[in-house]
């Protein structure tokens, strides 16, 4: 098989010009090349006689190019014009025409959806961009919904995403740097920032990291994110991914960089800090007291999601003294029927919770409800009745689940859900002392983490008084305007 293919290849090379050569002035030779080349599957080649009497070849790849566009803007003018003294370039009704003459370039452009026009006797071929794209409507992203504010979301096209950002930021300071990543399949990425606000050192760092990516194909921005992170062994995300143009625009106003990967609707933003994961774009459009309340709620649920199960284990295994008597008696009553030690009980329930969440995630909505019923009624109620878990444990699991869903950012929420498990382990070994040590390790890790070379713990550690105004409590907008639009990182 391979032998035969090589033979064909050899044959082709004998008869037709190689990739590196330029096109011929003869249509027949060009047509022969196009017919023979194996790199262009699905190529359509049409021979026509155009208005000035010359013969021409119109070629494009069917499935990538926009056929109605070509027939309307290329074929139809070429065939129906009656004024013979006009040039071909003047007849074609598209904004941009390029001339190419190397076969290699021609092949690349045809694969990118261009339409090429070979003219009898011409040294160059005319190139018209006729890429057909499958575009989704810019709908509101499902996991970043807001109550107020815009309901538009990024789509799978770099240029459209940049245009959406442009809608929000009309500043003349907006800069876009294009580059490519991927060794085999080049993916276009655009780095968007505001010249007057962004830190140039971070840009340099970002560019060297992107250039250093040696991955073959980047399909999604998530993949790129992992390639350019500061600490890939951390469970905390060091870039913020968002599908919302308004929140990315708000980040740009804080001097951050947005990295838009073509064909990926989620835009990654950096440098980021721990505090950013507790903010949502909604916070700024609602009034400051209510959004401060929500912020406090998020921080409390962060603590609950990490520490509640381990706190339960520590109390049951070591520090029953700190419970009020009545609660102690009722917990003791329900614990007595459970044959497992608290750590097994807690692990069992937390794993079931994670499974339920994962099971419900990708299922269609109608079946997703079934998962909820199975989880809620069968596991929640029956497990208690059967004496497998205590009813306090069910409350603990429910509270941690709700708390972990409060996090506005799914990546951060995952990190939090994961830390729970090692925390439960240390709690069962060392009780409250273990929890405190675990907490200190988390804090140490958070403050030593960096995102694009800037500290992750800002504004808490290193402490920045000015930025604290937009952290746990969101001060009124006029008081934080400087924080919101400044080179804070």
């Amino acid at each position, binding site marked *: 098989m391979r032998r035969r293919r090589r033979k064909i290849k050899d044959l082709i090379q004998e008869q037709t010009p190689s990739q590196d050569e330029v096109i011929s002035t003869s249509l027949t030779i060009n047509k022969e090349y196009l017919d023979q080349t194996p790199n262009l599957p699905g190529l359509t080649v049409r021979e026509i006689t155009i208005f000035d009497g010359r013969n021409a070849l119109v070629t494009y790849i069917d499935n990538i190019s926009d056929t109605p566009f070509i027939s309307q803007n290329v074929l139809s003018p070429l065939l129906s014009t009656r004024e013979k003294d006009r040039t071909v370039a003047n007849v074609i009704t598209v904004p941009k025409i390029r001339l190419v003459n190397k076969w290699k370039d021609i092949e690349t452009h045809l694969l990118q959806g261009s339409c090429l026009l070979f003219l009898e006797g011409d040294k160059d071929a005319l190139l018209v961009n006729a890429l057909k794209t499958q575009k989704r409507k810019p709908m509101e992203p499902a996991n970043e919904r807001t109550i107020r504010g815009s309901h538009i979301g990024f789509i799978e096209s770099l240029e459209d995403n940049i245009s959406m950002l442009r809608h929000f930021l009309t500043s003349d300071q907006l800069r876009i740097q294009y580059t490519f990543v991927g060794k085999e399949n080049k993916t276009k990425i655009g780095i968007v920032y505001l010249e007057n606000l962004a830190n140039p050192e971070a840009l340099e760092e970002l560019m060297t990291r992107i250039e250093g990516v040696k991955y073959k194909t980047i399909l999604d921005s998530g993949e790129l994110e992992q390639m350019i992170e500061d600490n890939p062994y951390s469970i905390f995300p060091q870039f913020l991914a968002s599908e919302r143009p308004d929140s990315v625009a708000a980040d740009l106003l804080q001097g951050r960089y947005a990295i838009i990967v073509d064909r990926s609707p989620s835009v990654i933003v950096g440098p980021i800090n721990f505090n950013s994961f507790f903010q949502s774009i909604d916070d700024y459009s609602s009034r400051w007291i209510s959004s401060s309340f929500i912020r406090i709620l998020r921080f409390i649920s962060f603590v609950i999601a990490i520490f509640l199960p381990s706190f339960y284990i520590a109390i049951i295994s*070591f520090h029953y003294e700190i419970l009020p008597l009545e609660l102690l*008696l009722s917990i003791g009553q329900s*614990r007595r029927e459970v044959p497992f030690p608290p750590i097994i009980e807690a692990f069992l329930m937390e794993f079931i919770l994670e499974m339920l969440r994962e099971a419900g995630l990708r299922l269609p909505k109608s079946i997703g409800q079934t998962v909820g019923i199975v989880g809620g009624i069968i596991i929640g109620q029956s497990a208690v009745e059967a004496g497998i878990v205590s009813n306090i444990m069910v409350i603990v699991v429910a509270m941690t689940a709700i708390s972990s869903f409060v996090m506005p950012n799914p990546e951060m929420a995952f990190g939090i859900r994961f830390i729970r498990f090692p925390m439960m382990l240390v709690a069962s070994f060392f009780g409250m002392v273990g929890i405190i040590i675990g907490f200190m390790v988390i804090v140490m890790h958070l403050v030593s983490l960096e995102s694009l070379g800037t500290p992750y713990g800002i504004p808490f550690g290193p402490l920045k008084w000015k930025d604290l105004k937009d952290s746990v409590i969101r001060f009124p907008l006029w008081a934080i305007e400087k924080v919101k639009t400044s080179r804070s990182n």
Partner: protein
Amino acid sequence: MKHSYKKFLKSCMVFLLIFLVGCRSDQLSLERTSIALVVGIDQSQEEGDMTIYQTNPVFSREATDTVSTLQTTAHSLRQARDNLDSQSAGTIVGGKLQVLLLGKELMKEQAMFEELDVFYRDPKNSPNARVAMVDGPIREIMEFKPEDKPRLAVYLSDLIDTTHLRENAVLTTLQEFHYANFEKGITPAVTEILFKGEEIQVKGSALLDENGKYVFSAGHLESSIIQMLRKDVQEPIPISLVVEKPNKVLSVGVTRIKRNIDVSYKDDQLVFDIDFKLKVSITENTSSLDLIKDSSRIESIISKKIEKKADKLIKKVQDEKIEPFGLGVYVRAYEYDKWKTFEDDWPEEFSKAKVNVKTSVSIIEHGVIQ
């Protein structure tokens, strides 16, 4: 990148080293404990021994009773615990102790403070347990299981707390008991309870000497006065007076108290000038007194009554050579040089002191009738 990979490996190894080391942990699951909620110490038939009672909750679906009561005889509390441990299914822990009951007969003979050493030495024991003296055998209270009341520990602690809230008895926790013993300017007092018929009742306060030996009992109003002198009151204090014989009553609630305690020496005698300013509201009046016209008379009746009670109490306290009011602290603060000379036998010195109690009452409320 390679460097941080090694770092990751190293931290994994450290993690495993920490967690794979076998060592004894002081982990003790809740359901494996037998939590002592009420501990009672009473006299034993045998010389030098004490009878120790303990109740703990029973967590079991099969057991019909939710409380188990254990009893043993031992020389000391720690010894008793070891005995009880072998009688109980769970490990006995004292971290949630609610009430410590002490027998009156035992307290008459023995200074209790030394016996309670284990409660203070072992940090796992709760210092918040209420100390109460029982007039009568403790056994009866420990085996008291009425159907219309919660479990004994909850019932007893609620009973003591609410009585203290109305200032009808002092409330002393183990920690405060320790303080009263350690502080030279005060002698301890604990709640006194009584098992009468089929009811538990808070009788008042039991006043102890500096070593924790029982001396005499104070009733409800006397307990209120002790606490007024200690500046440890939560208003309102209810006071009922019989103003017209045989059964016409005037009840008032003391809503605000201002106290002023002055210490001085007059002719080499220690003098306390204690000045109470009470603001009272009338809560009940079944007598023929006219609240508006006779207001000054009512005020003097109330203040006379309180003064009389206080004088009587102080007289008795001085006779018995104890001092549960904590007035020694004022002497130390204002007459330090003199205090140094008699600090070790302050109750003795107090018995020689002169205490003037002056009370002025003003009525601020008559209720909603008028």
